[in-house]
């Protein structure tokens, strides 16, 4: 047997510091909140202590953002804003390796993903939106679209740097200033992004980054002087935010959960479908709102496909996030791991057939072996609830209409996958899917030029593309 020797990326590259502070009005300052300890989910060791914001800090940050908006950023010509944003894109590229290693340390995602997806895509988002800053009049939203003011943004832990980029880049391009709260368990790369913003010499207060838990997020979105709220996270919290902001006249965009169906028709390119299914549910440990967590496979190819899938999943390497050969890293937190255990237990209890890869797992850290449930019915929790982990639920169908009906049978509507070699069927199914993103013969593709966002309880508003600008303009 050929065992791959460990090939770890050096953690020194992350320039990890013992302490991180919040970023307000262009300065790194101590926060008034209880400091948090951020943990490496791959080893359970504490990585660093991070200061968190108090309510007063939130107020200070919003005031700084308001000042920056009124005095500098809101009135700066777009062409000048653009150059600042281009600088950020370049600085991210220059510090890409550092950011990638730090992201994998703090989040647990495999280095190959932070290196090949998260960090380059984050840079791409700044690069793309920088170009918009002086071209907003061409966005089809009126001759002189105006910014909204101060944007309060709350992001999740699954793509810490990338989500920060998705939020900050369009906000700045449209002329808004930002108060952003990174997730409690993954604050580090956002704070290095703050360093980058400092290096890019952005005027103080244009971007403020406040680590903390949900209470800080709530204070940010509820602050009376915030004009725009953008949230990515669970549908549960999204609903709370929408409820809290009722009547507040703040523009809201929500990017929430999902339970995407990946539909495999009998004429699919099966080997690539297997890759797409694997990518769809095991990419980023399944911590992806648009993950293809429900596989709908046509009965006539179900056995063959499932066999191929199990063989393929057995080759997935679970372990040290910093190892370049790791396919599935660590689950982000003990809480999330417990949730995955709880839901998979419910799958077994409800009678689904569980198959789990026999891959070895490290002794320390939060890990979960890739798992495939077959004989799943729509009524089971694992077919309805977002697991947000490396767990796939397999259902079958007989006819295209049945596939569509099952795929759409969810309050969510973020993404969907379609696998078939028949062109007209692709377009038919894509049209029928009640989902904001439809991947046909591919899955989990992201690009700053392509709008992303959900139908129904997966949220509203789009990120990326011309459509995404609307969220940050008074139109």
């Amino acid at each position, binding site marked *: 047997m050929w065992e791959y020797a460990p090939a770890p990326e050096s953690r020194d590259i992350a320039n990890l510091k013992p302490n991180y502070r919040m970023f307000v009005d262009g300065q790194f300052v101590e926060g008034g909140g209880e400091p948090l300890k951020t943990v490496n989910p791959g080893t359970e060791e504490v990585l660093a202590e991070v200061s968190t914001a108090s309510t007063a800090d939130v107020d200070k940050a919003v005031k700084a953002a308001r000042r920056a908006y009124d005095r500098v950023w809101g009135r700066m010509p777009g062409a000048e804003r653009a150059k600042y944003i281009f600088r950020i894109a370049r600085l991210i590229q220059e510090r890409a390796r550092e950011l990638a290693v730090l992201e994998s340390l703090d989040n647990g995602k495999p280095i190959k993903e932070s290196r090949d997806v998260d960090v380059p895509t984050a840079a791409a988002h700044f690069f793309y939106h920088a170009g918009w800053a002086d071209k907003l009049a061409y966005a089809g939203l009126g001759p002189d679209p105006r910014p909204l003011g101060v944007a309060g943004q709350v992001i999740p832990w699954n793509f810490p740097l990338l989500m920060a980029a998705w939020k900050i880049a369009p906000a700045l391009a449209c002329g808004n200033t930002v108060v952003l709260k990174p997730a409690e368990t993954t604050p580090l790369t956002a704070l290095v992004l703050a360093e980058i913003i400092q290096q890019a010499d952005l005027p103080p207060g244009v971007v403020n980054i406040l680590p903390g838990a949900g209470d800080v997020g709530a204070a940010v979105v509820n602050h009376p002087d915030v004009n725009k709220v953008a949230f990515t996270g669970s549908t549960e919290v999204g609903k709370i935010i929408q409820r809290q902001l009722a009547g507040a*006249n703040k523009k809201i965009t929500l990017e929430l959960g999902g339970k995407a169906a990946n539909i495999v028709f009998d004429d699919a390119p099966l080997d690539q479908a297997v890759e797409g299914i694997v990518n769809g549910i095991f990419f980023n440990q399944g911590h992806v709102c648009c993950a293809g967590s429900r596989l709908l496979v046509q009965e006539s190819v179900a056995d063959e496909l499932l066999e191929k899938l199990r063989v393929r999943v057995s080759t997935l390497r679970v372990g040290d996030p910093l190892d370049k050969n790791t396919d599935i890293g660590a689950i982000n937190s003990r809480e999330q791991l417990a949730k995955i255990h709880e839901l998979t237990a419910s799958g077994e209890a409800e009678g689904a057939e569980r198959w789990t890869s026999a891959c070895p797992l490290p002794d320390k850290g939060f890990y979960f072996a890739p798992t495939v449930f077959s004989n799943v019915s729509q009524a089971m929790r694992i077919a309805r609830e977002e697991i947000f982990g490396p767990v796939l639920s397999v259902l079958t169908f007989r006819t295209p209409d049945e596939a569509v009906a099952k795929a759409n049978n969810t309050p969510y509507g973020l993404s969907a996958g379609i696998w078939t070699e028949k062109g007209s069927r692709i377009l038919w199914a894509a049209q029928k899917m009640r989902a904001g993103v*439809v991947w046909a*013969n591919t899955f989990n593709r992201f*690009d700053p030029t*392509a709008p992303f966002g959900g139908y129904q309880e997966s949220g509203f508003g789009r990120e990326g*593309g011309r459509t995404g600008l609307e969220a940050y303009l008074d139109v």
Partner: protein
Amino acid sequence: MSERISVAKTYKLYIGGAFPRSESGRSYPVTDTKGAFLANAAQGSRKDARDAVAAARKAFPGWSGATAYNRGQVLYRVAEVLEGRREQFVAEVGAAEGVAVKKAQALVDAAIDRWVWYAGWTDKIATVLGASNPVAGPYFSFSVPEPTGVVAVLAPQQSSLLGLISVVAPVVAAGNTAVVVASQDRPLPAVTLSEVLATSDLPGGVVNVLTGRTAEIAPWLASHADVNALDLTGAPEALRADLEQSAAGTVKRVLRTRPSEDFTREPDLSRIRAFVESKTVWHPIGV
């Protein structure tokens, strides 16, 4: 010779293409701005709202799946029939809004023109709001606007026809189906509009019109899980926040236009944008 006694009209609800009375059996008197009795209007209930949502949902696949050209023609046909009833609308708007004939004529003309404007949008929305996305990879990626679904529309309380049409037309032009709560005190032009819709080629259920107490009906629509979006334009001020909170229960899209909106202003695309979803589709490019 004595003056002829006119035939008075019974004003009813418009649900699923039919004109039922309220299931509650209730009606309420509608007066002109000076307090003179005009007619009794049906006082819609939560069950009427429920039926209207069911009708709108049932009509959604057909209406949203029709070609944009077809939707455009159907909506244009509505304008044709509106034009034929111009005088009736002038009288009703005049009575409802307490304006002189000239002003009422101007409002009705603007309303008909507004409908024509939106009718012409059906087959242009995807061109203007859609995109081909130049992604960095061997994929063809495109984004198309799709209707959000069933939209609950709280019509403006003041502008009984122009305002009504300004909020309903964009919803259906985009391919949505609508449950409209008409102006509470000025509902008669809305009911007449229903008759126009029923006698045009608009499929039953695409637009459903409820008359009655906005404050009574709106909460049921805001919390209804099969309603996808909510237009608050005509919501009572005191109720707006509550309705938004209810809407959050199923993450509805909420259009928070203020009731003070000036409907005589040239419209723009914002009301269409408010009720479409962007769907992005990716496919690899290869041999």
